[in-house]
């Protein structure tokens, strides 16, 4: 059976393992979270490009979905002047429109540029061009021969729609788009959407081979993708966003960079958004995002260590307490042992064979009586101390005449220790309220201590009692051995004894602790000033109640 089994253990190995484990966990957590962050940032680099694309292409979508169809609302009545106004509003709102060509179209009549199909003439009366220069919209009529390829494509589609579309129902969005729109790289052509009534009239014209001049508008918008404003809504991810032709593929200089791309829709489909970021740029972003995560991991680890330390400290305190109690029992056993052995000797002597003289009998009786008193005293102290600690006694306050009260103790001690010089001065106060038993214990202990810890020739004690404002102060000044400075904090602790020649017997280190408990219990306080070999002053302050 190992010897140390029931001893309190301090296992340093366990502590070390704990610390190592925490450190390892900390490191692993940092490593994993850094890697996850890096992965996340890389994923974002690949996915957030859609947002940038959407932001960048938004004006184009607005132009495509709202501004261009506005032409339909003019029902073909645009002329060069109103078309110029319309073009101006386009240039103003959509910087990527480079040039607008306006075709003043006639349905049902013939001019120099005429598409004749399905028995119907669709012709151009005039072509105007508008462009934007120095904040001004400039316009010019195109003189023949003008570029009419856009018009021809549209006219064929329009003619087919007039001739063959199903008028018994509303045309679907798709059919309308395929007829009235022509989206080619870098340009959009649009002609105003016809009502079913118009189709009916034109069909009628077709069948009757009639001529008339119904107005129709067509516009071709020339777009420049490089004039699109790139809106990098994620500058932390993309160091560089640029518009590049769809075939752009750098392999030489940008090798070490992260790159990704997103194609433009519709008329810009020949171009793409090209995103690139240097490795260091992304690393910065990873670090920026990792910082708070790392901090949290660190904080959690520190917290774990803190908790470990707190548990360790509590255990330590418990061990100390246990040791104190152990010492106390040791001391107490010693204290008990002395009177008990004296009683034992006296008892065995009394039982002895020889007749006892009167003097011997008295002597033994006195010894037995004194030692029993000592035991009783010890027991009382222990009992009342426990009671005080548990707050299981009650204060019994009564009016105390100070002079009477003090003289009772001084007289007793003068009788007990004839060499003890006791003096008492009372100033400005005669009576007050307190529990005489508890206060008496304080007096007894302090006077006893003063006698005990004094050199044989210097056994003196001055007691000064004064009233200060709402307090009453009891000052015990002796000329004893004094207390070293570093012990001052300990003397009121339970079971604490200063090791010296004066307390070899009859002391358990409870006296001052007991006093302090009593004074605190009476809502007062006790302080001490002391100098080694010169003496000590114990001051008890109690609230003054009259």
């Amino acid at each position, binding site marked *: 059976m190992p010897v140390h089994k029931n001893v309190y253990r301090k296992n340093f190995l366990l502590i070390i393992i704990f610390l190592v484990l925490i450190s390892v966990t900390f490191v692993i957590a940092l490593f994993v979270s850094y890697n996850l962050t890096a992965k996340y940032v890389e994923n974002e680099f690949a996915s957030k490009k859609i947002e940038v694309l959407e932001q960048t292409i938004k004006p184009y979508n607005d132009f495509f979905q709202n501004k261009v169809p506005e032409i339909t609302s003019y*029902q073909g009545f645009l002329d060069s002047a109103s078309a110029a106004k319309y073009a101006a509003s386009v240039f103003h709102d959509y910087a990527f429109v480079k040039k607008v060509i306006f075709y003043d179209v006639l349905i049902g009549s013939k001019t120099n540029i005429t598409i004749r199909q399905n028995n119907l003439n669709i012709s151009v009366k005039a072509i105007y061009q508008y462009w934007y220069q120095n904040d001004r919209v400039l316009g010019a009529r195109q003189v023949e021969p003008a570029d009419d390829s856009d018009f021809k494509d549209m006219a064929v589609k329009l003619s087919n729609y007039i001739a063959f579309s199903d008028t018994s129902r509303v045309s679907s969005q798709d059919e309308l788009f395929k007829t009235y729109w022509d989206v080619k790289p870098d340009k959009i052509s649009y002609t105003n959407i016809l009502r079913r009534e118009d189709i009916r009239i034109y069909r009628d014209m077709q069948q009757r081979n009639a001529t008339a001049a119904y107005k129709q508008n067509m516009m071709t918008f020339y777009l420049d993708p490089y004039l699109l404003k790139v809106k990098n809504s994620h500058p932390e991810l993309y160091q560089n966003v640029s518009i590049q032709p769809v075939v752009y593929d750098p392999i030489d200089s940008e090798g070490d960079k992260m790159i990704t791309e997103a194609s433009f829709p519709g008329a810009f489909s020949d171009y793409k958004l090209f995103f690139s970021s240097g490795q260091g740029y992304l690393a910065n972003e990873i670090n920026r995002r990792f910082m708070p995560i790392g901090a949290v991991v660190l904080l959690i680890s520190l917290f774990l260590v803190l908790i470990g330390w707190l548990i360790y400290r509590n255990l330590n305190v418990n061990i100390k307490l246990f040791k104190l109690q152990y010492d106390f029992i040791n001391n107490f056993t010693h204290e008990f042992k002395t009177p008990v052995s004296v009683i034992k000797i006296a008892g065995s002597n009394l039982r002895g064979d020889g007749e006892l003289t009167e003097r011997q009998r008295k002597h033994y009786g006195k010894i037995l009586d004194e030692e029993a008193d000592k035991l009783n005293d010890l027991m009382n102290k222990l009992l009342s101390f426990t009671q005080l600690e548990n707050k299981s006694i009650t204060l019994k306050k009564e009016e105390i005449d100070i002079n009477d009260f003090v003289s009772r103790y001084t007289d007793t001690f003068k009788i007990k220790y004839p060499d003890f010089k006791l003096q008492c001065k009372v100033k400005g106060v005669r009576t007050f309220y307190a529990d005489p038993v508890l206060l008496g214990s304080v007096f007894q202990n302090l006077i006893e201590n003063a006698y005990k810890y004094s050199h044989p020739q210097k056994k003196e004690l001055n007691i000064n009692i004064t009233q200060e404002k709402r307090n009453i102060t009891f000052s015990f000044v002796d000329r004893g051995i004094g207390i070293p400075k570093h012990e001052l904090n300990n003397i009121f602790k339970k079971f604490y004894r200063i090791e010296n020649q004066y307390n070899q017997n009859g002391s358990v280190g409870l006296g001052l602790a007991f006093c302090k408990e009593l004074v605190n219990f009476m809502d007062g306080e006790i302080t001490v000033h002391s100098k080694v070999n010169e003496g000590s002053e114990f001051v008890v302050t109690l609230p003054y109640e009259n």
Partner: protein
Amino acid sequence: MLGRLKYILFIVFIVSLWSCKEKVRRIPITDFFKTPEKSSYRISPDGKYVSYLKPYKDKQNLFIQSLADGKERMATSFDDYSIRSDYFWTYNNQLVFSQEIIDLDRYKMYTIDLATFKIHNILDQEKVKVSMLNRNRQRPDVITIKMNKRDPANFDIYRLNIKTGELVPYLINPGNITEWFPDADGKIRLVKSSDGVNETILYRPDDKTPFKPIIENNFKNSVKPVAFTGVKNNFYALSNVNRDKTALVEINAEDGKEQKTILGCNKADILYVEYSKNKHRVEFAAWEEAKPHKHFLIPDIESMYHSLQERPELKGNEIRVVDRDSAENRLILNTYTDRNPGSYYLYENNTGKLTKLGDINSSLRPGELCAMQPIAYKARDGLLINGYLTLPLGKRRTNLPVVIMPHGGPWSRDSWGYDEQVQFLANRGYAVFQVNYRGSNGYGKAFRSAGFKQVGGKIQDDITDGVNWLINQKIANPKKIAIFGGGFGGFSALYGVSFHPELYNCAVVQYGLINFFTFIKDAPPFFKPYLKMMYEMVGNPETDADQLRAISPVFHTDKIKVPLIIFQGAKDQRANISELNQFVRELRKRNVDVKYFLKPNERTYFRSEHTRMEMYSEIEKFLDYNMRVKP
């Protein structure tokens, strides 16, 4: 015990709450907008039969009632296509009716034999439109019809023998004749030609002489021939040539000169005259001021109308003769008030017997409907504007929620009489305000031309002034004003909420006009005079482009903030659906609360009873939410 007490208290509370409210029954929507049961009453020339149309398997079929024994009989049982409402009796008691086979674009005309109820098909043509022009007492088997068989764009006049089905051309249209005025013998001596705007009246003394123009007018003037007077070659006509308000005049057909003014009214245009073909006389002329007025030219007729109006069941009713027998003894009357959609009566002149044939809508009780009161106010420039105000039943006369209903057109008008939409809204507790803004018909030439080129201008100002007048009169609750209109009225509603957003709470738009370029596009470019009229009345899309753009709601989606409800039939030929869709999409993008109902199988007016009911229940919900629930 306590539970029972609570229960009783609750009942008392509910009852007291109920009695506090004025009891106005909410008439179901179906009662307002259902298809009439019996319609198109006619009487046979001998006065022995009454015929009418009534739905059978959802299609209109012909029914005949014998007046001798009161027996009713279903004469036809078509379940594919309805019988057109323009059926008629011939002078020898034959019924002629027709059917349009819409899917095949075919027109069929039938006769029915009263004795055997046998049906004969006398005409079956593809891709034509036919209508009866005249029936002749001397030759009852031959009717005069117009038909566009030769040229889809032009009608020619034919004589059709209903016994044999023989079709003989009578007058070939040179290309511009639009109206024919047969005389008492069925001969056509007076015609009107039109280029769409300018009208010319032509005359020929007999069938052998060519027509020669006698009167030429532009679109600001009009002459409507009524009938030959029988004296020389004079004819009656309604004319506003050289006068502001249309009057009944007599014109010499030889030279087109006005002989005399028979009747003029200094307050309003004479809108129509009642002419008896049997007795060749004008019975009365009618016009509309605040309410319809008649001026009788024949004392007998006047006393007949007066005695009819004395009868308790017809007190306060407007009475019109719908049809009469040859002897002018038995008459079919149509009567109505502002609170009564109308009834048909048979009246026997010799006995004074009045028999009710049927109600147009028997589910409605006049006591539950609301009176339409004429009102007038001064516009900001001092012009007097007339309108009608229909207040809901109940004691409250002030601070009412109001629905403004500008009429369409804009060259038409609102008249006093029963209006199902108005009554529906009034029954739901709204005051309804109708306004004949400048440009409306019936108030003379000056008033009409005051509206030229004023769409979105003074026309709208008149509506706005009307709303302010209602507010100043304390009739309207200024926070609860809705605007509701169809066609041009829909434009007025959208324009109102765009440019006077503080005035209107919400808007209801039916087949709304959202773009004036579209409106003008309805004028074909080869109709030069029509274009000219359009440009003069509305605006020139090229020179006035800025103005038209400024007033067309489609360009101003940013200005609309109030909730809208829009109804549109997808088969409306004149609407640009993709434009309207774009308009709604744009509004929704701007967070405007738009309810949009695009009905795929409907045209301008919703024909299906189901969609009509749905529309009105949506309107009811929409108005209720925006005018009452919402703070």
